[in-house]
């Protein structure tokens, strides 16, 4: 018999030869030294190739194979069991909760003045009663009825006036929500009160001086909400406010409507601030804008696809940027929330050279905080 070819050797070693072929091969190999050696070589080669392929396996632990029946498409209905229900129920509960929260958030943000007024009127709490309720009565007789304006429309309409109002309102909405939370299960009476308040509201432009009671904060001069039976559908209480209080209200993460501010070039910005605007080095400056009211500049920089705003104003300028803007504020905001907000605000503001720089952007607070550390004059 002729020598054995490689293919047959491999087939033999792979156990793929028929018994007849096996016998023939083994007879030959027994007598042929060369083929015996080759047989050993090919065996080593097969081992080696198998080991190499063994290294080409998915890294890490193998993903467990799902039961075969789960691969069926569409998946066959499984028996209804409690364990199967639990997930959907949990989801349903989550959705209900989300919708519920959304509803209350919506209600409270669209009817902030009304709700707080309703509170003042029908369910005075200690702090509210101390500062607002008597004034409400007083305002009753002296405040002229202004044209009724829906709150949300009003919000939109006043946007160009300044970010302070809007951000203030956000802060206020938040506060209001917090205060409303314990009363959430009393939603029905609350709504009734709202309707009553809607009917009884009248907007008031009462000046701060008209307020004898201001125990909530020595620096916060609140105008009391004016409430009186009236046909006005709804209203907003406008009032002026002192610097400290405003700063407390401004949440660094809240939206500041600086996009409506006029753009400003680097040189005028420097002149305005008395120093070169601070930036986060290494990131492109998208735009610079100035506060139309006061000495404040916002530098917008693009960082990882997000636009981060650096609000900055001269250290010597004691006036807060909001001072020039009329402030709309809820009549009964607790002092604690102001303090808390002020603290939060401080955390995301920093003095850089002769500027006070505040950071805002669609990033987590710790990211913003780290970015703020990078700001250089």
């Amino acid at each position, binding site marked *: 018999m002729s020598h054995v070819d490689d293919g047959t050797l491999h087939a033999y070693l792979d156990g*793929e030869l028929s018994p007849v072929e096996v016998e023939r091969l083994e007879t030959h190999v027994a007598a042929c030294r060369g083929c015996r050696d080759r047989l050993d070589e090919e065996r080593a080669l097969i081992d080696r190739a198998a080991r190499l392929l063994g290294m080409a*396996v998915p890294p890490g632990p*193998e*993903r467990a194979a799902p039961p075969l029946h789960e*691969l069926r498409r569409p998946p066959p209905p499984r028996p209804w069991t409690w364990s199967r229900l639990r997930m959907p129920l949990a989801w349903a509960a989550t959705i209900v909760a989300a919708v519920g929260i959304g509803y209350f958030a919506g209600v409270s943000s669209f009817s902030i003045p009304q709700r707080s007024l309703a509170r003042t009127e029908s369910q005075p709490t200690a702090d509210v009663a101390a500062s607002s309720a008597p004034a409400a009565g007083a305002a009753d007789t002296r405040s002229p009825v202004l044209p009724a304006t829906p709150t949300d429309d009003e919000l939109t309409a006043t946007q160009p006036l300044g970010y302070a109002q809007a951000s203030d309102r956000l802060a206020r909405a938040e506060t209001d929500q917090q205060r409303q939370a314990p009363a959430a299960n009393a939603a029905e009476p609350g709504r009734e009160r709202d309707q009553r308040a809607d009917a009884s509201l009248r907007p008031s432009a009462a000046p701060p001086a008209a307020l004898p009671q201001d125990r909530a904060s020595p620096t916060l001069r609140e105008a009391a909400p004016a409430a009186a039976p009236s046909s006005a559908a709804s209203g907003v209480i406008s009032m002026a406010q002192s610097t400290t209080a405003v700063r407390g209200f401004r949440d660094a993460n809240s939206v500041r409507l600086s996009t409506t501010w006029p753009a400003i070039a680097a040189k005028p910005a420097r002149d305005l601030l008395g120093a070169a605007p601070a930036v986060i080095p290494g990131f492109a400056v998208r735009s610079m804008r100035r506060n139309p009211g006061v000495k404040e500049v916002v530098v917008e920089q693009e960082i990882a696809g997000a636009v981060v705003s650096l609000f900055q104003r001269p250290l010597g300028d004691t006036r807060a940027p909001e001072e020039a803007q009329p402030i709309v504020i809820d009549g009964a905001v607790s002092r604690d929330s102001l303090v808390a907000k002020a603290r939060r605000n401080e955390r995301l503001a920093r003095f850089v050279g002769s500027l006070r720089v505040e950071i805002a952007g669609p990033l987590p607070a710790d990211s913003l905080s780290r970015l703020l550390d990078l700001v250089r004059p």
Partner: protein
Amino acid sequence: MPEDLAEVYKTTYAALVRFLYRKVWDAERAADLAQEAFARALVHRPGNPRGWLFVVAANMARDEARRAARERRHLTLLSQESEPEAPALDEAISAEQDRTRVRQALAALTPRDREVLLLWDAGQSYDEIASQTGLAKGAIGTTLARARRRLVEAYEKGSEAEHVARG
């Protein structure tokens, strides 16, 4: 009588994943494709599920490779800005290097040789390989002998080149 698919699933699933992994080089994708192949088998109920599965899997891997080729440009762009590699243990790094070398060695084979080798390594018999690839059964041994030799040679050549480059 057709083989019980559940039995084939038990005995062949892991091999099919490995077979696919050596084609797509993505563990998750390989498992997905293997499951997809079995899902199709559940619908089609082939007479010879094992052979059928490998044919289907090979086709899916080929489609996958075409798609990957189309996306390669995009992936190249992505890899340029990819995140820095997570610190890995030496062992993991070495295993990854081995995988890469074997992958390159397999790429040095002709498609037919590679297919036959991978099918054999996935546990297919010469008969099955022959029917799936259209080769004569008598040619399988020869093809495997050539494929194994080339794989080992290409692997060692790649390692040598690496050592030279390093040294």
